[in-house]
Each structure stands twice: as C-alpha cells, then as structure tokens.
C-alpha cells in the first residue's frame, strides 16, 4: 500500500513539473515585452532595470527554476508583472472558482443521477433515447449560449435571480448595482450581500450552466455503470430472494455503481477550469478562469505570465491531489480493489 501511494505521489509530482514547464515554455514563446508595456517611454537602461526586477532577463530554465524554488522554499507564487503578489490574486479568485466547481459538481450529480437512473431502468426505450438527446443538447449548445439563455429567462424575463456577480459565503461584499445605460446611477450606498442564501442565489445559474456542460458524459457513464451493476450475480440473487426493486437499488446497486464516478469527478478538474472560464465570463464572476483570461488578454496592462503559471499550477496541484485522494479512498470503499492490488 505504501509503495502504491509513493508511486502515485511521484507520478503526480512529475505531472506537475511537466504541466508547469510546458506552460512556461509555451508562454515564453509568445512575444511579450512586459517592461515596454509597463513603461512605454522608458530608456533602454530603465527597461533593463525593470526586466531585471521582473526577472525576465534570465533564460527560460533559470526563470522556471526560480519559479519552482520560490514555491518550494517560501510557498510564494511570485510577483505578477503588474498585479502585485500572485498569492493575493489567487487567494481572492480561488474561493469563487471553488464555489462554482463544487456547487456545479453537486448540481451535476443531482441532475445526472435521476436522469441516468431513469434511462437505465427504461433502457432501450423511447424514454432512454429522450434522456440521452436532452443531455446532449447541453453540450450541443455552447456554455456561453446556455448561460445567456438561462440568464435571459430567469433574470431578464422572470426577475427571480440576479444576473451575475459573486456573493461570498463568509463575510460580505459590495455589489455593483444593476442599472441601464442612460438611466441615472442609483443613489445611496451600494447594496451588500453575503451569507449562504445570497451565495447560492447568485451562483444557481452558473452552477446550472456548469452542470449542463458535463451532463451528457455523466448521464451516459452513470447509466452504463447502473446497467452493468444491475446485471451482476448478486443483484440476481437479491431479486431471487424476493427483495423489492427499491431495496435492491438502495442496498446493492447504488453504492457499487457510484464509486467510479468519484474518480471521474477528480479527473475532470482540468476540463472544469475550461468550463469555469466560460461560465465565469458569462456571469461576471472574478474567479480563476476570468483571472487567467485577464492575464492573457492583458486587460490590466501587459500579458501577465506569472498569474497564468500560478493558475495552471494551482489547477494541476488540485488534479494531482484529488486523484490521489480518490485512489486512496477507493481502496477503503471497495475492498475488492485493495485485495487485488496488495499481492502486486
């Protein structure tokens, strides 16, 4: 078991190195001159001084080495070219993306599970086909479009949900008041919000959009798992003993069918960031995805390599840690796997 963990940990760390190194090299190729962008009127010597302060006058490998050393030695992700401490940027953005992804994954399970159960129990019927097509619709329409449609309907037509922005779960936060161009800006102090109710109300539409993006894959996967488990010998035995269908589902099928889904959730974190970028943009949530886009597009100054690197690093670390945890938990949850692995 210990050897297993050590091996997984090692390959995880290797993956981390590879991901950050490739990011570094790829983005190094992008022609960007941060010093020039920060100070357009500077002389050559001043530019050189800024380059030295930012550390971009070194070779790629030295810069990469510095990046890794800072993380290992000080837990510091470095300084952005123009956004101050990257640690602060990530600390501000991470809770938002975390809320989005965790809540979105929950909504995804809540949606995909009943749908998959329905289509597994009615396999090869019209219901099955309809569920599949409905879930594919979520991916056939881009998250941008899904998000815009949801927002247009629930915010624009029904006025029941806010159109975007983030409300923190803990503490409060000032909102930019909603107003239309041409109307006077609302007077008085800006509205504040915070707490569980506001948090979930503001994030409900983003969660739904996020869930739609993964729905077809998960519905199909859970459905396949359920069908496979329903065909197992122990289910036949339970049925032969006269257990009710509900009891069979609850006691014999669900746990076994749902275990592999945890692995899938952990593996999909990389894709989750991609989805988060779109969802955060549609709903104006200043999370990691939007920070990455801002850093790349140079929304606040030059193109900001340290921020991009930090975000790739944070996401990659999450993937590695989660996969490891799920692998470990798996051994405890499903004894068959632990037994199979131990002799090897």
């Amino acid at each position: 078991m210990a050897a297993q963990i050590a091996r997984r940990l090692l390959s995880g760390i290797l993956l981390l190195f590879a991901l950050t190194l490739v990011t570094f090299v790829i983005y190094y190729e992008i022609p960007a001159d941060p010093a020039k962008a920060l100070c357009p009127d500077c002389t050559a010597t001043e530019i050189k001084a800024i380059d030295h302060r930012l550390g971009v006058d070194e070779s790629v490998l030295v810069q990469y080495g510095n990046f890794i050393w800072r993380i290992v030695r000080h837990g510091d992700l470095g300084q952005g070219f123009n956004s101050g401490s990257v640690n602060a940027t990530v600390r501000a953005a991470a809770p938002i993306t975390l809320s989005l992804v965790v809540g979105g994954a929950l909504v995804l399970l809540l949606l995909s599970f009943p749908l998959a159960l329905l289509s597994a129990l009615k396999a090869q019927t019209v219901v099955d086909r309809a569920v599949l097509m409905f879930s594919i619709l979520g991916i056939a329409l881009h998250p941008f479009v899904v998000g815009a449609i949801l927002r247009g309907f629930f915010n624009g037509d029904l006025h029941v949900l806010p159109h975007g922005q983030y409300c923190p779960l803990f503490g409060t936060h000032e909102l930019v008041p909603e107003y239309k161009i041409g109307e006077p800006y609302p007077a008085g102090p800006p509205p504040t919000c915070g707490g569980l109710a506001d948090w979930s109300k503001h994030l409900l539409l983003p969660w739904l959009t996020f869930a739609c993006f993964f729905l077809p894959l998960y519905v199909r996967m859970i459905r396949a798992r359920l069908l496979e488990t329903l065909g197992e010998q122990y289910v036949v035995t339970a049925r032969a003993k006269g257990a009710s269908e509900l009891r069979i589902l609850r006691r014999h099928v669900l746990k076994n069918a749902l275990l592999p889904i945890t692995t899938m959730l952990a593996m999909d974190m990389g894709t989750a960031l991609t989805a988060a970028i779109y969802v955060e943009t549609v709903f104006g949530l200043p999370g990691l995805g939007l920070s990455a886009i801002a850093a790349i597009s140079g929304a606040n100054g030059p193109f900001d390599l340290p921020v991009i690197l930090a975000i790739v690093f944070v996401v990659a670390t999450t993937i590695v840690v989660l996969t490891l945890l799920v692998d470990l938990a798996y051994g405890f949850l499903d004894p068959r796997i632990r037994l199979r692995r131990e002799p090897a």
Partner: protein
Amino acid sequence: MRHLRRSIFEGTRREPLPALPGVPGGAVPAISVERSAVAPVGYWAQIWHRLRKDRFALVCGAWLIVVFVVLFAGAPIVSHLVGHGPDEQFLRGADLSRKPVGPWTHVPITFSLYGPVPPGTKHTLFVLGADGPLGRDELVRLLYGGQVSLEIAIGATLIAVGLGLTLGMAAGYYGGWTDSVVSRITEFTMGFPVLLLLIAIGTTISDRFDFITFHGVLNRGVFSLAIVIGLITWFYPARIIRAEVLRLREEEFVEAARMVGASNRRIMGRHLLPHLAAPIIVYSSLILATNIVLEASISFLGLGVRLPTATWGNMLSSNWGTLLNLSPGRSLYLAWEPSFWTSFMPVIAIGSTVLAFAGLGEGLRRAFDPRSIQ
C-alpha cells in the same frame, strides 16, 4: 474439398437475402451445393441490418447527408441564385442603428445610407436576413461557414483518431515502457486546461499555418485549427483503443498469428486493426460532434478562423463578443444590437448537426455491439 467449398459460397451468394436474415447457426441449413435455406450474413451486413431498424439513427444519418449536400453542393448554387457571395457587404442590410434586417428582406443595392431609395434601384434578396451591422447575407454565410466548420471538425477528427490509433495501439500492444510513456502523455493532455493551451497555441503557431490551404482545397485557417483541435482531443480515442488492444492481444488469434511467425506490424495491421474498426467509427462520429462545438469555443476566444471568412463558430460569437477583449467582471458587450435571428441561425445549425452526429454515433455503437450497455 476446396472446390466444393467454393461452390457452396458461390451458390449462396447468388441467392437473394431472406427478408429477415438471422445470425447464422440459428437454423441449420440443409446441406446442398446449389441452394441453402439460410444465407450466411457478413459482418457488415449484420451491422447494416441492425442499424436499419434504428429509426432515430437513420433520421440522424439522413439529416447529415442533407446537411453535407446542402453545404457543399448547395452553397454555390444559392449564392448564384441570390446574386451575392458570403463576404459581400450591403449598406442597407442593417438599419440606421445598425440592427440587421430580418428574414426574407429585399435589400436595395445603394451606396447611400440615408433617405429614400430612388425608384428603379436593384434589390437583392436576403433569405434569412443579414448577419450583423455590416449587412452580409446570413444564409449564404451560414452555408459557406458550415463548409469551413465541417472541414475543421473532420480534419481535426482525422488527426485525433490517427494519433490516438497509433499511440493507443502501440501502448496497448507493446506494453512496458511504451505504455508508461503514452499513459503519462495522455494524463498530461487530460490534465492540461485545454483553453489555456488553445490560447497559447492560437497566438503563437497558428500564424504560420494559416496560409496552408493545399492549393485552395481548404479554406484559410482550416489547417491550423484542425491541428490545434486534433492535438488536444487525441487522448480520448487513444485511451479507448489502448484498452481494446490490451484485451485483444490476449486473444487466441493473435497467439496463432504469432505462432506462424507473423511480425508485430503484420499482427497489428492485419489482425488487430479490423477489430478496431467498430470503436474507431463510433468514436469518430462522437468526436466529430464535440469538435464542431470546440470550433465555436475557439471562436469565442477570438482565435478562430479570421473574419471575414465565415464559420458557424464565428457567426455565433460575433453575436456575443469574444473572451479575449474583455476586462474582468464585465459581461459581454457589443457595439451593435444583435437580432434574434443572427444568433438563432448558427445555434440551430450547430445544434442540429452536433445532435445528428451524436445520434448516429449512438446508433452505430448499438449496431456494432448490440450487447454493449455503454
């Protein structure tokens, strides 16, 4: 003996297939050289028979054929009939606030933006209205844009499946360190935030590939996008093919082939590849579906095919704005008022094609392996 066997096959082949060919072996045919009661049904014939009963998959397939014919054969015809091309701009194609005209509008060809149209001015028909403030024909752009989108999706799928097949087969067949290396690369590609990679590649290498059109066969920008999409989606077929080869290489026919001295290459090419036809065909159609959506995603980043060349993706994204010219915290903002039609049309085009590819893929999967539950 050999002569006899040949005549049995020839005899059965001349027979018309029975109305419902069952799996051979269901009924023992009377041994007769001239006629047999049950004709043996080939692998592909069985698949076609199962697919034919799947009405939904057939509808999807038929819709795809219609889409392909209309896009590739219909686009020049429609363009000729209405008398303008996909990139031609008409001043009166949008009103004074630059809101595009709606479907079935006769747009006067005039160089004045203001005032009444002088009598006798020629008009041109916009069947689905205009595409935006520039007043280009939505229908013609939709048709030509569809060509580009499908070329990208198909090209990317070929690259992804080719790469996935090669790497997956090598990993599954040779095992050992080849497998380790391929598996690590696969994990790497899966773990990488695709969008960030796309942005990086899109802003660095695509400039150099944009002008490769293979002597005008492809539209400009198709090749680079196909490569980019292929490079980020190959891991999916690779994993599936690796798993399949891992299972197949333990089969007896591989052992038998090795025993008679077949080389690795021959085993892979002659004995394993035919077994992989089913997953390749099925997953190609599913990957095609996702690639069409990916093309739209890339257009939303502002890194897709350059305007004015139309694609379904950039027709959609021009209604919403692209990601890379946004500042954080601000929602999408456009300098013109999009009409309902300008986003409705590409959404319907993308949605129906993606749905059809996915539906056909599902049907094929069932037809290839009726016992499969996936």
